[in-house]
């Protein structure tokens, strides 16, 4: 069983999917000989050839639009968008076509495609290389939005995304691409796209997050544990459609919840989760639901980015506020 990083797990899943299904193909900018700017597609060109591993011209909207045509024809394109700052030209194709091709043809044409994209800040990247606009995608009916936060989840969720009969936006937390190694069996087993992941179990507080922020959130839970406060830590994993059961179950138990994400507060996906709690767990809540997020400002250039992104300290201090209610 290989011990791999998150980005290596992505690579492993891509290879596995291509190996077991001839219709799976990879495309995007620099995914061929260069193996992707983060090496997620490294080696695929050599293994599967230029017919199935394609460097596209520099046009994101085209990558998405072309994928739709391919998918409608029974191919399974897995396209890479290089950074989330450059993903926005594809929204038109995703909203108007990919997410509703099945719907508007009553199932006649379908759109099994995956758009992979590294997202988030914290790697001291240039301007426009650190965005987190997952909330925009999670508001699109007919689409799935999936975010892995560990090598094994990256492997299993990506396989599921590729096998899924509907379009998936698969966002990879690039800050933790190489943060940790994990033993991941290359067994081709998908992780179903209707669950969330309880990473820590506790009694006093529910911490909810996704993507790279899982690291800070777990760190916060450990700081709190030292004070005798135990937390459920939930990695949402699949933002849309959101199966909220694990979240509701946890909050009905703990009565307290802090939601963490890197994207700006206003209109962020944390709002959706807090709103579900305000509707469905209201009567269990013992304290206000606090969101610890990026500020409602532009992700700053590297010099200040660490002040923008939530830290374990900010999470702990929100948790303490929540815990102080009685």
């Amino acid at each position, binding site marked *: 069983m290989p011990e791999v990083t998150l980005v290596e797990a992505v690579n492993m899943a891509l290879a596995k999917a291509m190996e077991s299904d001839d219709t799976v193909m990879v495309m995007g900018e620099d995914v061929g000989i260069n193996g992707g700017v983060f090496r997620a597609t490294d080696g695929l060109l050599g293994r599967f050839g230029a017919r199935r591993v394609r460097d596209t011209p520099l*046009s994101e909207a085209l990558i998405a*639009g*072309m994928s739709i*045509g391919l998918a*409608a024809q029974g191919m399974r394109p897995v396209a890479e968008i290089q950074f989330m700052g450059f993903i926005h030209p594809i929204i038109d194709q995703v909203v108007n076509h990919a997410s509703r091709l*099945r719907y508007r043809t009553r199932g006649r044409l379908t759109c099994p495609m995956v758009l992979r994209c590294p997202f988030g800040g914290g790697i001291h990247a240039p301007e426009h290389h650190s965005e987190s606009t997952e909330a925009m995608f999670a508001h699109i009916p007919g689409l799935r939005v999936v975010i892995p936060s560990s090598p094994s989840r990256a492997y299993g969720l990506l396989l599921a995304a590729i096998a899924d*009969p509907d379009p998936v936006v698969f966002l990879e937390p690039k800050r933790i691409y190489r943060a940790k190694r994990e033993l991941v069996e290359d067994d081709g087993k998908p992780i179903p796209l209707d669950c969330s992941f309880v990473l820590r179990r506790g009694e006093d507080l529910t911490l909810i997050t996704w993507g790279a922020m899982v690291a800070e959130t777990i760190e916060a839970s450990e700081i709190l544990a030292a004070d005798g406060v135990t937390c459920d830590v939930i990695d949402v994993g699949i933002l849309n*459609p959101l*199966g909220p059961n694990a979240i509701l179950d946890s909050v009905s138990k703990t009565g307290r919840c802090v939601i963490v994400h890197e994207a700006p507060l206003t209109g962020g996906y944390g709002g959706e989760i807090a709103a579900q709690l305000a509707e469905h767990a209201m009567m269990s809540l013992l304290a206000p639901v606090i969101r610890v997020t990026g500020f409602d400002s532009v992700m700053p250039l590297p010099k200040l980015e660490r002040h923008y992104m939530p830290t374990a300290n900010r999470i702990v201090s929100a948790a303490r506020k929540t815990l102080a209610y009685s």
Partner: protein
Amino acid sequence: MQVLDENGAVVKALPEFAKERTQIIELYRAMVLNRAFDAKAIALQRTGRLGTYASSLGQEAVAVGTAAAMAEDDVLLPSFRGHGSQLWRGVTMVELFQFWGGDERGNDFARPRQDFPVCIPVASHIPHAVGVALAMQMRGERRAAVCIFGDGATSKGDFYEALNIAGVWNLPVVFVINNNQWAISVPRSAQTAAETLAQKAIAAGLPGIQVDGNDVVAMRYSVEQALDRARADGGATLIEALTYRMGDHTTADDASRYRDDADVSHHWKLEPVARLRSYLQQAGLWTREDEESLLKECAKDVESAAQAYLDIPGRSPESIFDHLYYSLPAPLAAQRSAMLAEQIPDA
């Protein structure tokens, strides 16, 4: 590129298909039917029984000529003005009425199963066409994609990005511009400074040609040639079909706000149906009786399709949850139940 001039006179050797009476009459019939369908659709809209509708009046030769050039297993990606192409390819009038009447089931046409539905966001289907063509190429099939769109669409990035990749990957696709001179109120001259739209192909390293879009023979012939080349691994072609939008943009539009009647009248002299009829009559292939019986037949077909459309039972409201995903995710199932619980009886 022109075979029949404005008066229906032959100005260039007739291609083989045009020498066969049945074939040329089939083209004529399809254009007449297209026009009758448009007229009925407008009538239905005016009486509140169809939604906003985009007529293809005067542009029948582009739609029919293009579709007639295609093989059954090619894939068509039409814009919202492609009724004539869709009808030729086997979409039924009932299905078309249904779609334009505001019911998605009209897009689930019985054939051709792989064709795309009408595309409303201008130019956004052109990238799909290159995707379809790439799938065909990757599988080594001798098929091609055909994408039709308007002059206005040539200003969108989607158009150029798709043309560009069709060039660099040598994809089996034919792009047909239905240049009807208007994008709602914006004339072709305000859309671009390019002298022709065909020359935009040069940006992608593709061949681009201008065709008389009111000459159905020239249309079918040019698209056939482009398709032959595409299937023989010769790559993509851009065809600019020059025609004219004789009607309003849609039933929601009033073209008299922005264009001269004189301009419109002038174009009535060039329109494709009368032109082909002149040719057929001059060639002794068509009599007044033929014409009368065709008009009658088309009217009857259109009427009975309209009636069949009006007779289709409504869909149940909760069907808005069907076909969104392959299977209904749990949170949506909950919403569906809530809808059913709250459902108010039909007004």
